[in-house]
């Protein structure tokens, strides 16, 4: 068994009976015990549950009753996903002892697909306030350098999967919380189209911007995970009632003939990225051209407008959710979450409606801009991960986000590792598709990963003694 099998590799080995789900799970649990004292990616490992899941998977597989490619694959769940009988905290003191009695829909679907649950993963408080040092648990740290930030809010998933403590995991993305950690940790992560994956049983942050989705080492793994996650759920009012395509069917089709639009002003003018990020985006575009795609620049409204629209909606909706506790237990929140969200209480109703009207005009603008384009390219993060202690309190407001525009539009968006910067930490790009075109994003992302070497580099991990 490779030290760090991908889901696809492990799945093939398990199907060929060359890898035991029990051994694979034990290997992940051993790695958690060895490395997570530095990374803090798990809030709650669940080793007994994991071994029970693994033994059940192994029995099914040996009896010829495999549930498919995820049967016996060890994963973790971001700690905003409800898990029946297992603590779900939102990484917050306010839910420190919260034990749901039902699984969220996505947790149930992954369990039905045969995944092995290793535990609950760190997040920023309620998927917004981080990195925070005043919560009951420390923030997750970047496996490439534990002194550095993972981005968030799916910070524990980013750290655990990068370090090979889990083969994949759930994230959520309201303004970039899947794509940010994927970028700074060097993973693939997809925010699917709004409505493709259920939000039922997931702690909400902003009803109209929240998305659930997976993070994994490769695009192919993301496709496998999304397959078991997507689909109509009557318990989610925003769920899209439409068939789910086969996300891996066209994975090897390449990008020949695809039309790629580059929103260059987003990352060269509106929020100027570092040299490595820009250079690696340009190199990726060269690869797409060499593989037969057509590439051209396109222009959209300034990034600041998209960011303002998303931020105001997010903050106002979050405030509405948290208002009762903000008024009665303000100091039980971490400083970052409470101060960021408290601003939402100062936004007038008419301003919220204006943001929603602007949102529709931006959705129409993107639709028109993509009329003769299949995929947009932009940045995910401006640079490599900064030191975790240096992340400003108002980071989400000071500079416009590259990711929130596609929460505003609900478009599918995939973050991909494009190499490493001078500090040895990953950099990334973002591929954005038309609604429900996830399969095309996977196709393009897989073509890029296959043409480059970045998936062959894993971090050298520190143990608590050595850290």
């Amino acid at each position, binding site marked *: 068994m490779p030290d760090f099998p991908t889901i696809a590799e492990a799945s093939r080995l398990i199907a060929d009976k060359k890898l035991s789900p029990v051994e694979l799970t034990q290997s992940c649990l051993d790695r958690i015990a060895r490395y997570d004292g530095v990374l803090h990616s798990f809030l709650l490992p669940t080793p007994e549950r994991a071994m029970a899941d693994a033994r059940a998977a192994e029995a099914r597989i040996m009896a010829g009753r495999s549930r498919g490619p995820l049967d016996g694959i060890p994963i973790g769940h971001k700690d905003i996903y409800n898990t029946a009988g297992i603590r779900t905290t939102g990484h917050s003191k306010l839910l420190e002892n919260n034990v749901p009695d039902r699984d969220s829909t996505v947790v149930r679907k992954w369990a039905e697909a045969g995944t092995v649950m290793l535990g609950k993963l760190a997040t920023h408080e309620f998927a917004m306030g981080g990195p925070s040092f005043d919560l009951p648990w420390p923030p997750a740290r970047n496996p490439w350098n534990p002194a550095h930030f993972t981005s968030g809010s799916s910070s524990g998933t980013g750290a655990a999967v990068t370090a090979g403590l889990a083969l994949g995991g759930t994230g959520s993305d309201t303004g970039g919380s899947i794509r940010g950690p994927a970028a700074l940790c060097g993973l693939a992560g997809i925010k699917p189209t709004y409505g493709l994956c259920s939000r039922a049983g997931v702690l909400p942050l902003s009803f109209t911007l929240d998305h659930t989705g997976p993070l994994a080492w490769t695009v192919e793994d993301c496709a496998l995970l999304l397959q078991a996650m997507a689909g109509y759920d009557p318990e989610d009012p925003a769920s899209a009632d439409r068939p789910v395509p086969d996300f891996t069917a066209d994975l090897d089709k390449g990008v020949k003939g695809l039309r790629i639009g580059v929103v260059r002003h987003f990352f060269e003018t509106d929020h100027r990225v570092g040299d490595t990020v820009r250079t690696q985006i340009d190199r990726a575009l060269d690869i797409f051209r060499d593989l037969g795609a057509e590439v051209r620049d396109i222009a959209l409204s300034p990034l600041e407008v998209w960011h303002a629209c998303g*931020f105001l909606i997010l903050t106002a909706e979050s405030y509405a959710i948290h208002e009762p506790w903000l008024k009665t237990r303000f100091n039980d929140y971490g400083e970052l979450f409470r*101060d960021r969200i*408290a601003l939402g209480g*100062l936004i007038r109703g008419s301003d919220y409606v*204006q943001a929603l*009207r602007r949102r529709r*005009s931006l959705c129409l603008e993107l639709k028109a801009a993509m009329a003769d384009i299949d995929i947009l390219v932009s940045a995910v993060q401006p640079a490599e991960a900064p030191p975790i202690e240096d992340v400003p309190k108002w980071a989400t407001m000071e500079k416009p986000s590259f990711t929130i525009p596609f929460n505003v539009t609900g478009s599918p968006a995939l973050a991909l590792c494009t190499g490493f910067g001078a500090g040895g930490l990953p950099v990334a790009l973002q591929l954005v598709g038309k609604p429900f075109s996830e399969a095309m994003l996977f196709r393009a992302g897989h073509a890029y990963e296959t043409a480059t070497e970045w998936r062959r580099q894993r971090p050298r991990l520190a143990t608590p003694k050595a850290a």
Partner: protein
Amino acid sequence: MKPKISEDAFAVLVEQAGLPLTDQQRRTLYEAYGMVEAMLARVTEPLPREAEPALIFVPEVR
């Protein structure tokens, strides 16, 4: 980015919201509020009167 609103007017906003802030906490939010004002300006540029919001009311609740 210094807020356009005065500190006194901001205190009224906070009071209307019902947030139990200390003076220090209110000052912290005040310092950040200029960024909110800038965002509000970016989304409230006039749209045609008939421009609908992104979310529409659907009577068939599920």
